[in-house]
């Protein structure tokens, strides 16, 4: 996948917290809660003004709650911000040389009314049914997993009670080793969850800012 496109996906998912829903041609689809967000990527070496506005216009035809056009910094001179703001189209400028920090939302998209008129009642009912079904499935899974957890806890507790008399005897060597390993694993998990925290990256970047 194109690196700049990858940066756009990372920015929309990691920084803006949206869910990546896939791509369709040169349009990347994200889910922001229940709303769909479309980002059309136009990352060419040479930009044509007419083509730029053609693509921005094409975005308006998509059934998305918000639409963005992602371009490289070379396209900026051709951008008429009044047009983008007027149409409610968002603008993302990607500078791949600066990595994730090179992704900048210059204009935030305005929320749009999706043309619901086209959707007939039947389709609406079907969508509703599908949503309801997925919600019920999700809830069922949750109940199942909580039941499983409770059952597991109960079984573990009973097993622990059975083991307790045996605990009076000196514990066999391998078990001690496995416990130490488990402790080490837990410590490693903790460390990796700390290192992967988004704030670690943000705070670390302050060193560069101060040095500049």
């Amino acid at each position, binding site marked *: 996948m194109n690196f700049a496109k990858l940066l756009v996906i990372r920015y929309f998912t990691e920084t803006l917290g949206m869910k990546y829903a896939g791509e369709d041609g040169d349009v990347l689809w994200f889910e922001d809660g229940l709303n769909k967000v479309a980002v059309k990527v136009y990352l060419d070496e040479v930009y044509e003004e007419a083509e730029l506005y053609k693509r921005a216009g094409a975005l308006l035809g998509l059934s998305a709650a918000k639409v963005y056009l992602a371009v490289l910094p070379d396209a900026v001179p051709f951008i008429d911000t009044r047009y983008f703001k007027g149409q409610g189209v968002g603008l993302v400028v990607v500078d791949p040389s600066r990595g994730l920090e090179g992704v900048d939302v210059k204009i935030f998209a305005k929320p749009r009314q999706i043309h619901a008129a086209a959707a007939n009642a039947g389709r609406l009912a079907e969508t509703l049914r599908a949503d309801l079904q997925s919600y019920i499935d999700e809830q069922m899974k949750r109940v199942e997993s909580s039941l499983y957890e409770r059952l597991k806890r109960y079984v573990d507790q009973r097993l622990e009670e059975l083991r307790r008399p045996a605990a009076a005897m000196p514990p066999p060597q391998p078990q001690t080793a496995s416990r130490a390993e488990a402790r080490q694993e837990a410590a490693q998990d903790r460390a990796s969850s700390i290192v992967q925290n988004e*704030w*670690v990256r943000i705070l670390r970047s302050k060193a560069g800012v101060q040095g500049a």
Partner: protein
Amino acid sequence: MIADAYRLKYTFGIDYGTSYTKYGPITLSEPRVVHTRGLFLRDLPESVKMRIPSEVLSRGIVVGDEEVRNYLSSVRDVQRNLKYPLRDGIARKDDDDAWKVLRELTRYSLAQFPVSDPDFNGWLVSSALSALAPDYMYKALFDIFTELAGEIKIYAVTVVPQPLAVAIAENAVNCIIIEGGHGNIQIAPISFALIREGLVALNRGGAEANAITREILKDMGYSDIAREEYAVEIIKRAAGLVPRNLKDAIRVAKSNPERFVTKVKLSPVVEVEFTKEYAWARFMIGEIIFNPNHEEIKSYIDQSRIRIENAVIGDITLYGEMDLASAVITSLRSVSVEIQERVASQIILSGGALSWRVPSGLEDVAVDSVTKVKVMLDERNPELASRTGVRIVSEPQHSAWRGAVIYGYALPLSLEWSDSAKEGWYFVHGSRT
């Protein structure tokens, strides 16, 4: 040169809460917890002095739950000598006793983790303080660490505001943190850092819910129990309800009071009953935290000694009567318009005052804090509510400590403490080695 591996071992977090101090190194999965209080060993009979270790006696103060209990009965005037140093997370500048307790608590926390590693150069201490803490608290805290560095190895110290620490623990970069404490509620917008201009504080919290519980108990004929703070706290937790809508909830509770009658057992011999006549009053206990502007609550306030009014700490006004949804909107208005939507995308609730449960069978009228905030926002600004996700932190007691240690691990050591930015490391030996 301090490597990451070192920081993953020797970063130490201390969260100075009004009621509890949470502390421990980064390697712990959960912090140790101790009451934020100290007992001054004054007015001791000579016979008691003889059995107290001389180093304890020379310091004249003990901290730690077990240690305080050991000496509590020996001190003649407990009221005067048992000191809670923080009120609403703040220690007064001229309150010498408070600062003595905080110094002793800090020493106590660090001393529990002796290190024999020859490569140990000292702790990187990350302390979490109230976002309302005035500048002198930062300075006084650094003085404490500088003083302690003589006996405990400390490399550097930093301070992180508690709401930011909560956001870090929740891995939320853009959000609004609502921290509901005993004395106040803080609404703090976060976007890659704490936006101090947007900080809004409310001068009410768990203490006001306790106060109205006390008044209800008095009306129900339990004046003796109402005097005990401990009992009032238990009753509030067990019987208090947060209504989806106060008027509707009271109407339902008055028309069908049997559903809302409850008993709270305090001990094998003491039980409090919310009878049919007072069952509806359970909703006022929860509502006062979220919105005190109701006739029903006001009439209780007028008859009682509860005071809900504005207060000022440093340059921040703590609003008494502002409802929680208005506070969120006021806070958001101080945030740059460009990032408002991003900041408002998630609201994270934290703290004991926002921890409410819904008894089964009452779901039609009672709600938890998350739902209550959503409902209130929807009433005030449906557009904002539709774009905002509300959730509560997974570990309300530990999240500020967890955030503090992650902050301590991540903050670059090249960043020296700046009084204006309130950020960076304070190197206790003056300059970096």
